[in-house]
Structures are given as C-alpha cells and as structure tokens.
C-alpha cells in the first residue's frame, strides 16, 4: 500500500479497501447484535445464565489490572475505535458530510490518528444492556469500546458483575485536572474506577407552545384532558417513578418500598385516564415531539433545548423542571470487557475533559458538562459571537439547565440506588405499569 495515495483517490476508500474492517468473527458478532435488537440474542444467551457478583478488583495480569494496562500501553492504541452513545449527544455540523460533521470527534481523529465509528444506538439503558449482556456474560467482545450508561441499576449491575474494565488512572490527565466536584468520586462508582461522566442533565417536562399555552409546572398538567393523546411519560422507572415521588412530596434518594407503592399508584393514573397517554416511551419520545405527535412529555433537558436552539422548526419547544423538582442523571462513559481498543477508548474519554472540547459539546447539546472550565469558554464564545449565533450561545451560557444555579441544584434530585432484593421489588412494581 502506498503511503501517499494519489489525490484523486479518497483516503477513506483506500483505507476501506486495504485494511481489515470486519473479520468473520466481527460479522457473526454484528449479526448477533442485530438479532439482539429483536431480543433473539438475549433468548439464546439465556441458555446458561450465570451472574456472579464480583467483590474484589481484577487479579494481577487480568483485564483491567495495572500490568494489563502497562502491557497495552506499550503496544499503543489501535487505529480504530467503536464509540456507542445516545442520540443528540455530540456536536454536529450539518454543513459538512462525513467525519467532519462531528467536529470535536473529527479533531480527535486528526490529533491521534484513531478512526472512530460513532453510533448513536442507545435509546434505553435496559434494552441496550440486554443486547450486550450475552457477549459480556460469555466473555466476548461486545463490539463497543466505549458505551454510555446512565447511573441506573443497569450500570450498577455491570460494575457488580465485573462486566466493565477498571480504568487506568494514568491515562486521564485531563480528567484529573478538570473534572467538576459533582462528577468526581460519585456514589455509584467510588473513585471513578469504572466510569467517567460524559454529560449530565435534568429529567423534567418538555412541551410545544404551539399546542400548550400555559407554562407546565407539574406532572399533574400531563393529566390535563386538553392534551389527551398527546402526552408521553418515560418507560424507565428511575425517571418516571422519580418524578412521581417528587410530585407526592417524597425524596426519591431516600424512598422506601412503601413510597414506591405510592408512586406506582400515581403512575397508574396515567393508564387509568383512558386515551390520555400516547405511550410510555424511551428516547423515541424525541421523534414523537418533533413530529408534533406529542404536545407535552417527560423529557431530558438537552434534547429539548438543542432542538429549540438549533432548529427553527422546533423554536416553540420549552423545557422545565416541575416545581416539585426534577431528577438529575449522569451518563457515563465506560469500557466493556474484552473491548478491542481500551487504550484508545481512554484517550477519547479523556479528550473530552479538555475544556476546549467539553465546550464544543456544551455549545451544541446543551447538557450539563462534567468540565466546569468549559463554561468559561462557552461564555467567552458567546461574548465574541455575533447575530443569531450570539443569541443561541448566550441562551446556553445563561441556562440554569446547562450551568445549574444553586437554586436549580436544590430542585434536582438524585436517583435511589437499589440494593439486593430491592431491584426485584422495584421492577415488579413499575415495569407492569409501562406495559399496560
């Protein structure tokens, strides 16, 4: 292979033709992952289900140990990385095609030479975890080098079952220098052993002022018959039950099973109000509100704000946390076992802890960044910008949902961490509601 291809040939094409992209094994794996989307691989995986909680760290030389990392680091990062994230979560530039359309990621590739396959494939923690669990359980590569999981029970289970690679503390200088206090040493992952936050945000309510005249201040508003058939709630209990408990005056983080029962009864009202609810939804809610099928819905802050700010057709969208309070989630980058390129994965995860790139993300997706220093850059960019750009950047820089004020912080609540049998109780209580 020639080092310098003739200019008329697309380098990507040459790379595609000359380098291994997908081995036979990969092909089977992807085929399995595809089937997994329809639940098939889960069914097959169930052939021998053996979870066993891991209590100690990796043994010397094993995946995730210091020796293992040292060995990998001498080999250097591979030239390719699979990064799987949620939709609407990375900066976009629609004026260009190809890799350039994700500027911050493109900068990473330019700088490191690591080609990144970015997939916005995660729509729901439980569903996504279910598709990769079979591979993890049988000790195989999931096909993902970085995945992004919310601080929900699925992440806790993955840590407890030893499905995630313990991160190398030496490979994250930017993280050490710039991580915000709220994202360091979180309760769900002490010492950031397995995770580094990607972004954080609020679960609240989004609506379209084209159809909704009044400001939405309470979950009760979603039961207003005026909006019958155009209302959605989340089908993950962490968010739905969380908001329900807040509505009932219960603090989710310290709630008891009796409180959960009250929340379940409250949520059941949405099923009982026949024709009121369009559905219990996952990330699909975003498409539904964009199609104007939904008028008012439970929502994740940045999804709605990004739509509102960057797409004229969605300028009528609004987002707010109910007066009774909202939930705050943290979505975390982690490396599943047997990942093909852990060193490259850590390089990318740490890359976004550089305030420059953290700011690029924030300016686009309007979520809460784990890098406070990025905020100064956003503000500086807003001051320097002109015209419509200035308005957008000023809105982001001054939004309490992007840079939570102390007042906003008191309104945002943490999730309940479920332990042992509580998981079963919780699931049995809430999941049937979402099925109705």
């Amino acid at each position, binding site marked *: 292979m020639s080092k310098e291809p003739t200019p008329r040939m697309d380098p990507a094409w040459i790379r595609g033709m000359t380098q291994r992209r997908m081995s036979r094994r990969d092909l089977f794996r992807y085929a399995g992952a595809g089937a997994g989307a329809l639940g098939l691989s889960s069914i097959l995986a*169930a052939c021998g289900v053996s979870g066993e909680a891991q209590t100690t760290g990796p043994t010397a030389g094993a995946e995730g140990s210091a020796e293992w990392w040292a060995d990998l680091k001498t080999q250097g990062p591979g030239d390719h990385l699979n990064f799987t994230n949620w939709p609407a979560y990375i900066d976009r530039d629609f004026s260009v095609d190809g890799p350039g359309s994700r500027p911050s990621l493109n900068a990473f590739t330019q700088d490191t030479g690591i080609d990144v396959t970015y997939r916005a494939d995660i729509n729901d923690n439980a569903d996504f975890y279910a598709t990769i669990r079979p591979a993890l359980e049988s000790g195989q590569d999931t096909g993902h080098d970085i995945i992004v999981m919310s601080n929900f029970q699925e992440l806790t289970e993955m840590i407890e079952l030893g499905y995630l690679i313990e991160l190398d503390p030496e490979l994250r200088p930017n993280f050490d220098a710039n991580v915000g206090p709220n994202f360091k040493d979180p309760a769900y992952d002490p010492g950031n052993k397995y995770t580094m936050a990607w972004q954080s945000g609020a679960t609240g309510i989004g609506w379209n002022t084209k159809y909704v005249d009044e400001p939405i201040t309470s979950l009760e508003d979603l039961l207003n018959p005026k909006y019958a058939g155009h209302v959605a709630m989340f089908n993950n209990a962490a968010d739905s039950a969380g908001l329900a408990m807040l509505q009932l005056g219960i603090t989710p983080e310290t709630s008891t099973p009796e409180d959960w029962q009250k929340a379940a009864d409250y949520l059941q009202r949405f099923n009982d109000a026949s024709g009121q609810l369009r*559905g219990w939804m996952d990330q699909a809610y975003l498409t539904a509100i964009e199609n104007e099928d939904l008028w008012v819905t439970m929502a994740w802050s940045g999804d709605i704000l990004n739509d509102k700010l960057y797409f004229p057709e969605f300028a009528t969208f609004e987002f707010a946390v109910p007066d009774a309070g909202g939930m705050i989630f943290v979505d975390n980058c982690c490396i599943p076992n047997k990942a093909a390129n852990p060193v490259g994965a850590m390089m990318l995860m740490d890359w976004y802890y550089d305030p420059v790139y953290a700011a690029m993300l924030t300016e686009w997706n309007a979520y809460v960044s784990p890098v406070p220093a990025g905020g100064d850059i956003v503000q500086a960019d807003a001051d320097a910008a002109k015209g419509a750009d200035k308005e957008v950047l000023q809105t982001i820089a001054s939004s309490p949902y992007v840079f939570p004020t102390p007042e906003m912080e008191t309104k945002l609540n943490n999730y309940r961490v479920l332990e042992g049998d509580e998981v079963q109780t919780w699931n049995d209580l809430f999941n049937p509601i979402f*099925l*109705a």
Partner: protein
Amino acid sequence: MERSVQPDLPGVAPPERRPKRSRAPYGLATPALLWLLVLFVIPMLAMASLSLQTGNSLEGFRQTFRFANFADALSQNGEFLIRSIRNAAVVTCIALLLAYPVAYWIAFYGGRFKSVFLFLLLLPFFISFVIRTVAWSFILSDNGIIFGTLKSLGVLPESYRVLGTTFAVVAGITYNLLPFTILPLYVSLEQIDPRLIEASKDLYASRTKAFLKVVLPLSMPGVFAAVLLTSIPAIGDYVNAAVLGGPGTAMIGNVIQSEFLRDRNYPEAAALAFVLMAIMLVGAIIYARVLGTERITEG
C-alpha cells in the same frame, strides 16, 4: 416400460445396492436436520431448562425445577394473552377479506403478468420488517402526510389520531402479514381448473353459485394455510404494538420482551414463551381437526 431392472442371469448374484440407496435420503436430510438441531432443538431445550429455574440477573439463575413459573406466567398475563388472541383473530379475518380478492384476481385475471403482480406484492418486503413498521409510525403521525393533510382540509377533527391505538396495532400487523395470507390463497386458486367453473355454468349455476360451490371449496386448503400462516405470527407479534401502539395495546410478545430485556427475569420469560407456544399449538391442532385439509379434500 422397465429400464432399470437387470435380467436375472443364472449364477450371477445381483449387485448389492440396497444399503447405499436407502442411505441417500438421510444424507440429503442431514444439513436440514443439523440446522434444526443446532438452531431449534438445542435452544428449545435450553429454554425449557431455563423456564424451570429461579434466581435473578445479578446472582445468576439456578435449576430448581420450579413448575410454578408456568402457573405464574399464565395467571399474571391472562389479560395480555386474551388481547393477543383477540388481535390475532381480527387480523386474520381482515387479512383474509383483503387477500382473497387480490389472490383471486391475480390467479384468474393476472394473465401473463401474474409473476409481475406477485413480485410487486412482495416488493415492499425487501425492506426490513422493523423499518417498514417505523415508517408507518411516520406515515400515520398526527400531522403526517395523511392525517396532517386531512386535518388541514377539515375532513378530520384536530384531535383525531391513529398512532397509539389498538387500531394502529391491528392495522400494522395486518399489513405486515398480508403477503403470508395472499400467497397460499393464490397458490390454491391458481391450481383450480377453469373448466370446472365452466362446467358449473353449463349446469346453470349463477356466478355466485359457481363461486360458492366450486371456487371457494376448492380454495379451502389455501384458506386453511393462510389462516395458520397469518394467525400464528400475529399472536406472537410485538414490533407493531411497540412501535405503533400505546398504553393498553401491549400484546403477549411485549410482555415476553419486557421480561427478557427490562426485568431480565429469564425464567419467567421462558415459561411465558412456552405457555404461548402451547396455546398456539393446541389452537392449531383443534383448528386442523375441525377444518383439516383431509376433510376438505375428502368431502
């Protein structure tokens, strides 16, 4: 005319070919049998084993031969089972009503374009099932291409919607399964000898009577196959309810999916899957007894 029989020559024993000949069918069936063994029998056994286990996703599942899993699966999900059976019945009836005229027309009036029509019928199915269903969620969107237009013309009230209703789910399943209804009907209609219809008319049968007494009875094997091919996948479908449905439209497939993917309660999901299979099997056997193809061809 006998070509293959060798003449009996005195003192010469006929060559021993018998064992070789009788092994051939097994040899031919081996690939398919292996396929079934690996992808059907073994998974079924694994599922059967799983359906009797207890435990949870975190601590793992252990074999405890808990047959109560089946009782639980049946007692906790009666509502969803009934809804699935009802939806499947409605889908099958609608699909038959829609498919019969289409199959009839292609079989009797398709002429030399028969295969073109069949190809056109299957054309949309070159696209994945899930993607087609998701496409419908855009088409049926409240302000989408159909309802948006009708609403702006004032034909429909502003609040009218189809997405998220049982109607959308039933319509989606019917659409997705329609070729499985049309094709067997077409095959049986196509085989009817037109001279039989001519003969019935010679015997002063009206068009209606010729249809009812000749065409319909002769196409019954096709109807029989079409009903099975439509109703069985319809009962277990979950994609349509997940994509086009809303609260109150979940079918048994959605429950199984949720048990597997959301609760990760594999034994209960496996038990429920077996309950569903048993129901479909019993249903199909009863149906075959009542309206078996043998009965039709005999009578």
